[in-house]
């Protein structure tokens, strides 16, 4: 495992930040661009994952394991969020027969 790590040794921290911000921006664009509620939800998962990767990279960079514990908590939170969110989507589908978010404009001003 450590020999595997040695392959990554010369990657600067900025490149990890670059990768994570690219994935996060793709997630933001996905939330804005799609109308299917499930695909929007998957974009949110993408954003959560990019933050996880950046926290892990910072944790390794600083030599402090606290960041990895935070990632563990974020994963537990993501599991809870997916369960509740998909239940809400199923309920929306049962009430409106569609998961198109443009149907759900009753809260729109």
């Amino acid at each position, binding site marked *: 495992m450590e020999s595997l790590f040695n392959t990554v040794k010369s990657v600067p921290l900025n490149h990890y930040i670059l990768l994570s911000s690219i994935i996060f921006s793709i997630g933001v664009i996905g939330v804005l661009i799609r109308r299917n509620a499930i695909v929007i939800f*998957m974009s949110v998962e993408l954003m959560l994952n990019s933050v996880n990767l950046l926290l892990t990279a910072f944790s390794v960079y600083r030599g402090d394991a606290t960041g990895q514990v935070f990632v563990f*908590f974020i994963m537990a939170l993501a599991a*809870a969020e997916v369960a509740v969110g998909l239940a809400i989507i199923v309920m929306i589908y049962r009430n409106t027969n569609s998961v198109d978010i443009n149907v759900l404009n009753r809260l729109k001003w």
Partner: protein
Amino acid sequence: MSIFYFIAFLSILFSVLVISAKNPVHSILYLIITFFTFTVQYILLNAQFLAVVNFIVYMGAILVLFLYTLMLINLNKDSEPVKSNMVKFAAVLGGGCLFVVIMGSLKSLGVSQPVLLKNPDLGLVKNLGKILFNEFLLPFEISSLLLLSAMVGAVLLATKDPKTTT
């Protein structure tokens, strides 16, 4: 070193495919591949515990939940109404602006040091378990409460209310 850039390229490519695929089932399959590239990144960082948890939780549990919901909803027709090109352009512009802002603030950081592993057993289960059950014992217990309440909430939301439906 080149492994990192190859995996980074793959994860960017497949995450673009996630948001651009027309069929939601294809979208979910691309999402699985994206999560797998993240698992490889964790292994490259020698965070073995996180790699295993990411593999089990994201690629196992969450993706199965997504696929099941899609199956219940029965959306596997390509009939999603698309947004107008104007809205799409505005969305890409907004996301691009976010990216440019992050890059601008990153540029002021200057040249960064390479990521070096000072402590080889940093991300191993033994080390993380010691920290998790000493310093973070109370948050750990509270997260179990969070999972319990999420489970109860999901069951409550997804079951039909007999008073309103009949």
